[in-house]
């Protein structure tokens, strides 16, 4: 499985990662090698085998009488934010001309 640099660019866009030109070349090679290694799984017969997403046999349960408690105070929630106005997180507009 050889990934091209444009494949790498597409994946990087999906992952919201800016890569340098060097990184694109390196990741194209390294990801191709790792995917080649992983290709051995296609040789394994998994007919009728269920996928394991969690090793636990327990299922998610709803809590009874779930009272709100231990809520995060606003100042704690904002404590590590790169930019706030003291009451909320500040970010750029989501749409191009929303600023």
């Amino acid at each position, binding site marked *: 499985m050889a990934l091209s640099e444009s494949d790498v660019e597409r994946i990087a866009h999906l992952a919201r990662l800016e*890569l340098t030109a060097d990184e694109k070349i390196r990741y194209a090679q390294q990801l191709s090698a790792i995917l080649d290694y*992983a290709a051995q*799984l296609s040789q394994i017969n*998994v007919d009728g085998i269920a996928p394991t997403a969690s*090793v636990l046999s327990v299922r998610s349960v709803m809590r009874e009488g779930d009272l709100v408690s231990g809520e995060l105070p606003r100042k704690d929630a904002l404590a590590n934010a790169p930019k706030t106005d003291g009451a909320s*997180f500040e970010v750029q507009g989501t749409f191009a001309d929303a600023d």
Partner: protein
Amino acid sequence: MSLTSLTVHGAREMLRNKEISAVELTRAFFERIHALNPRLNIYLTLNEVEALAQAAAADVRIAAGEDTPVLGVPIAIKDVLSTIGLRTTAGSKILEHYVPTWDATSIARLRTAGAVFLGKVNCDEFAMGSSTENSAYGPTRNPWDETRVPGGSSGGSAAAVAADLCCAAIGTDTGGSVRQPAAMCGITGLKNSYGRVSRYGLIAFGSSLDSVGPLTKDARDAALLLSVMAGNDPLDSTSVHVPVASPEVALHKNLNGLRIGVPREYFIDGMQPEVVAAVRAAIDQLVSLGATVREISLPNTSLGLPVYYLIAPAEVSANLSRFDGVRYGLRVQGTDLIDTYKKTRGAGFGPEVKRRIMLGTYALSAGYYDAYYIRAQKVRTLIKQDFEAALQEVDVIAAPVTPTTAFKIGENVNDPIKMYLEDVFTLPLSLSGFCGLSVPCGFDQQGLPIGLQLMGPAFGEATILSVAHAYQQTTDWHMQKPDLAVGS
């Protein structure tokens, strides 16, 4: 014997008998940390002021007759576990200035029980790695040979224990990150069963695999720390209600009639012969203590690596999407919001984290999801079934932890697959969710430690700890210390 070489139970005994105070013990550790840390690069953040206050508070509780397994005992914490008011970087530049506003549940339980937190220790970035070289803050050095890695990702935790820079340390194991550095640093490391210890407040890596566990000077200490941290937590829906055996129960099993299985797939070409010899000798020792041994097969062992390196990165790509420069951590402003995300993540994450995010994003992307991710999950089922079948026939599985002893810093950094192969004997158990541990069982000709891996069923920690404890009662590998000339 110096105070800093004390085990948790040894320290507790002296504290209980008022032979030392927690403040005195804590000061001794900071003195040694100040002397050795510049060389070994183990602690990323020291908690000196707060630790001395915790120690003073513990002394008051001890004077009042209180007793817990960790009251007044100084420990180190891997920097992926949230600690309230204490910087937590996850070994990443993206969280360089992050100060959590809450404790991980495992840490909160240790805090309530009166443990003293010396500081936060180095690890591979977001716990992704096998050598601690992926830390944005430089590699930790192996106390047995400072030109070598301590293993990873809990390399700082393992090195801190080996260098007597704490009584014990807390680490995390997703694919071997407690067992492998424990083996390479000659200490004891317990990977708990998935769900045994709450993951709440652990900065998430692979959510179906992550576990929190102790790295200690002996098996008794591992049992003690487990007893404090384990148990259901309403804040982690995957934490279980299964009771944990008390350390006294866990450590007093007789090995007579214990059935040990030795998987043939864990002795492969290219392994260091001294590792094979030391592990075989350790198994012979267990037989001399009353156990029986037989060869078993875990036929899908070699598939653990490709399965893990699809499933774990897939979970990484989802978990690390939260680092977008909005609510915490680094922000690098771009031309628009999407560009800000990209620039922030491009600048904040290191090479291995980016590699795994890319790999996981690809494995989950349209057209590849079934071929890679779902297929890997199906093979994961086969690997889990291997362990289930084997543990019907034997009580414990014994094997090496790593194919080789600690490698040189820089030796594997340019070859991801070679680095990933370091975990070939720890990944399958992680995929099964069962428990395992590493105990020191010898040294190679260069004086580097070798680990014996003991693996048991889900929530079977008491069994593997009892075997490790019995082994340590009749061997002294775990008592060996690296020669670290201090103050010369």
